């Protein structure tokens, strides 16, 4: 499947858009042709005397001119609407297909798009593609207008028509070559310069406090301006390239008209018609020029999207939901056991939890049901563990949406039960919209600590044999903390759920019966993703 492939409905809309575009382009060329012919013929009839003038059939041409003006308008409107309809539908299908394909990948080996940059690039690629589809109908219209132009120019003699045909046939490859020459290097340079500027900028942004404290803004801005200058230079070349294409078209139109004029061999009205048609036909090719220019720019994005769509569709193997024993370092843990993992920050505690959760494939000295996590299928790990990560990882939507992520169709009773465990029932009960309160809007409905507890409630709802908690009580005052720890203790006991806990705080560590040092587990704290 290619990113540019359309479904039948999309193809239908695109066909309609193409017809509308062709009608608009034909009407545009004919409007000029009929106008030119009408004017010249009217002048000849006018000078031939009042009798000739009265005998001149002006009704058909003048009606045709007005009709063509309306047809051109309607055609353009239809083309824009239908092409957007095709593109929007195609992009919706592409987004859905891409998402399904990406979601089905094993997070440990699939492409990592969680980062802001990667997802922003994906969105940018899709948007660029949408524009390409929107412009697609204009391409066919350009060809039809050119063909009509050649036929109409034939009224002024075969030599003129042949010259126009040759000129118009040579134009698309010329535009294509020019567009590629003008865009390839600058587009590449611009992407490189943008990346370099962003990398350096992000480094400085991370050192913001020192830059501010010691007044180093000018030095840093000066250093960044070198990278910005590279970016500007490449983008300026791209923009001037567009100017070259526009200039090429303008010169080409003049050349075509001049050639048709020299080669025409017909009465004045027909030559007038051919001259305006030649100019119109070249102008109709402008659509082709714009797509050629854009196409060269989106080629890389198209390749990236096609690569994502070509990802294999993994077969989902059903995994046993039965609780399995866990081994961490030298410690053997039966289902329902609880362990706290301690160690310095940055020593790999979070990596361990994420590895057990199947989010990443680090090498750790641990075993699930006797197997190293890396050897377990994603489905098997998911069936065993429910993670409340350090960053709460909530999705945009309501509180209920977030909780239902872990267990679809869960009733409100169970939701309130877990919210009670994490000491959020009063807070959320106090919202006018309760569970249907939307998160993530400006102002932030929940504080950082509350978001973490919501994330914990979600993990509880999942009902897995093992719970993985990363700093669950962070940002809580001691009273709330001890309250929540006591409720969690009761919940764990009642549901016979095992616990792997990472925390710096004393109260939650009290939940665990065992303590293991991370130094005994983490054999390689860095990611081993391919």
């Amino acid at each position, binding site marked *: 499947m290619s990113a540019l492939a359309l479904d039948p409905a999309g193809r239908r809309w695109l066909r309609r858009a193409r017809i509308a575009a062709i009608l608009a382009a034909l009407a545009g060329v004919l409007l000029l042709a009929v106008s030119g012919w009408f004017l010249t013929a009217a002048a000849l009839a006018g000078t031939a005397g009042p009798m000739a003038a009265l005998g001149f059939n002006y009704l058909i041409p003048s009606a045709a001119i007005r009709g063509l003006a309306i047809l051109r308008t309607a055609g353009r409107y239809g083309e824009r609407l239908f092409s957007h309809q095709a593109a929007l539908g195609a992009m919706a299908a592409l987004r859905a297909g891409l998402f399904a394909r990406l979601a089905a990948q094993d997070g440990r080996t699939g492409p990592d798009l969680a980062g802001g940059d990667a997802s922003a690039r994906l969105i940018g690629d899709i948007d660029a593609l949408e524009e390409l589809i929107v412009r697609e109908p204009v391409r066919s219209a350009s060809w039809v207008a050119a063909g009509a132009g050649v036929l109409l120019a034939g009224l002024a003699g075969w030599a003129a028509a042949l010259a126009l045909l040759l000129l118009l046939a040579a134009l698309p490859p010329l535009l294509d070559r020019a567009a590629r020459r003008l865009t390839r290097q600058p587009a590449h340079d611009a992407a490189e310069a943008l990346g370099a500027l962003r990398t350096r900028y992000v480094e400085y942004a991370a050192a913001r406090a020192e830059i501010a404290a010691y007044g180093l803004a000018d030095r840093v801005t000066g250093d960044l301006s070198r990278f910005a200058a590279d970016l500007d230079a490449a983008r300026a070349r791209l923009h001037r390239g567009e100017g070259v294409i526009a200039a090429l078209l303008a010169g080409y139109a003049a050349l075509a008209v001049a050639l048709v004029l020299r080669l025409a061999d017909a009465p004045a009205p027909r030559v007038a018609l051919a001259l305006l048609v030649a100019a119109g036909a070249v102008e109709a090719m402008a659509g082709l020029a714009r797509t050629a220019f854009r196409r060269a720019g989106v080629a890389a994005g198209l390749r990236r999207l096609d690569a994502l769509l070509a990802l294999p569709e993994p077969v989902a193997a059903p995994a046993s939901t039965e609780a399995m024993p866990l081994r961490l370092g030298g410690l053997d843990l039966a289902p329902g056991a609880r362990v706290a993992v301690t160690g310095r920050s940055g020593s790999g505690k979070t990596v361990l939890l994420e590895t057990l959760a199947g989010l990443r494939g680090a090498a750790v000295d641990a075993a699930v049901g006797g197997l190293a996590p890396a050897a377990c299928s994603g489905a098997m790990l998911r069936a065993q563990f429910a993670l409340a990560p*350090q960053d709460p990882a909530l999705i945009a939507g309501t509180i209920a949406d977030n909780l239902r*992520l872990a267990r679809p169709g869960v009733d409100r009773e169970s939701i309130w039960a877990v919210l009670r465990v994490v000491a959020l029932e009063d807070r959320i009960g106090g919202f006018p919209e309760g569970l249907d309160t939307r998160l993530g809007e400006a102002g932030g409905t929940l504080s950082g600590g509350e978001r973490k507890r919501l994330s914990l409630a979600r993990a509880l709802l999942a009902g897995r044999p093992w719970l993985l908690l990363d700093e669950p009580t962070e940002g809580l005052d001691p009273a709330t903390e001890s309250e929540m720890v006591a409720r969690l203790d009761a919940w764990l006991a009642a549901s016979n759920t095992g616990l792997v806990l990472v925390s710096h705080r004393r109260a939650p560590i009290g939940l665990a019966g065992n303590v293991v040092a991370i130094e005994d587990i983490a054999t390689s704290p860095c990611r081993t993703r391919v």
Partner: protein
Amino acid sequence: MTWLLDIPGAALFAAGIALAVSSLAAGEGPSWGAVALILAGGAIRAGAALLAHAVAIRAAQRVVAGWRARIFPRLLAGRLPRPLLAGESAALAIDHMVAIEACEARFRPARAASAAAPLLVAAIVACASWVSATILLVTLVPFALGMILAGSAARRAAERQLAALAGLSGLFVDRIRALPIIRHFGAEDRIARQVAAATREAADRTVAVLRVAFLSGAVLEFFAALSVALVAVYCGFALLGLLPFPPPEKLSLGHAFFALAMAPEFYLPMRRLAAAYHEKQLGNAAMAALADVEAPAPAPPAAARFDGLRVVQLAIAWPGLRIGPIGFELASADLVALTGPTGSGKSSLLAAIAGQVAPAGGAVTTARGDALDPADIAWAAQTPLLLPGTLAENIALARSDATPEEIARVAGQVGLDAVIAARGGLGLMLDHRGSGLSGGERRRIGLARALLSRRPLLLCDEPTADLDRASAAAIVALLREVAAERAVLVATHDPALAAAARLVVAL
């Protein structure tokens, strides 16, 4: 205004065609003069296109350079209304600038041309046929009315709806970012169906909105076509002598044809403007976002001599982060630790105390209650800034007039002597990544810099994180020593460092 050059080119081109047609109609052969006019017109138009693009991008990049000069220092060192993630900051400083450049390079020149160019075209047409020129100008009236009708009310409603729809399509981005956790809970099939339904709905509703939004484009198209048709019909009837009223002007074929060939030029600038509408919207959105950051912070009152730090009821409330209110005092020689786990906002609180982000409430003053002078605050970062240059230059970033002896002394004080001895002294060349330096060594460079600055208040962000036990202990000892003569505030979750502090403020 360079696009105006296009119009003389178009006029020469039209004149060439008109000359050719009228001499053919008079029974003469096509003149070389006409060919020359046509080619000259084409050459001028080509030149105008080249020049206009070159001038436009230069002007646009000058505007962007101005924005960068204002925004970079603001984002990288100014007081911000809320802390920005490095990615957010980069989006403002880099991606928004690209949007502004596109707007300035495409929309602004098109708008400038769209005001003057139609009038210039009408004036040129008037030389050949003032009635045709009048016809062109008169179409502007219903055109303007149509744009107001189709444009304003309907389009504004449509834009509002489109903004609301952006949220629906934003779902895709959000769910892509949340993919790891979605997979973890095995919800990928459900969420994939939800994403499919949402994107489908967004597409369907967008089409409904576009039907209205494209109307203004249709109005423009209609009048562009109608103006050509009206000129053609008028000129045709005038040449036939069949006008239903006394002819207002004497029209020759040459003049009439010139007017006809020029007529499409009348609405061309407005069509170019409409084509740049998308760039305008993106550019305006970018400028609005940047203006939020740029909004000047109130000038701090005159600062007083530092005699200790007083933090009263300081509170932070940003989306996703709420801290405080907290209060504490720091004597002029003191060590206080702010503690809390990673992500609890210690660094943000330090930044608020340093005046780099605006707090939601509370006050940060000297012990006597006067305003704090930013030049009294030294900052030792978790990942210190390194600029390409020597080690000595990097230490001296805080005070450029420091002597080599002073630099060597602070370097020894923070325990950098080993590096200096092993790797070629203070002249050791560093790149901006600090390649070859360990995390502990970089941390020490930051501390050396802070000490060299001789500033009375030292703020340290996680000075012992990621260090092995021995180096961490050395840093703690050093900070104790420094605290004997300066006010030191550390943000840390290291119990050893917290134990060394006179006061521990837990978040």
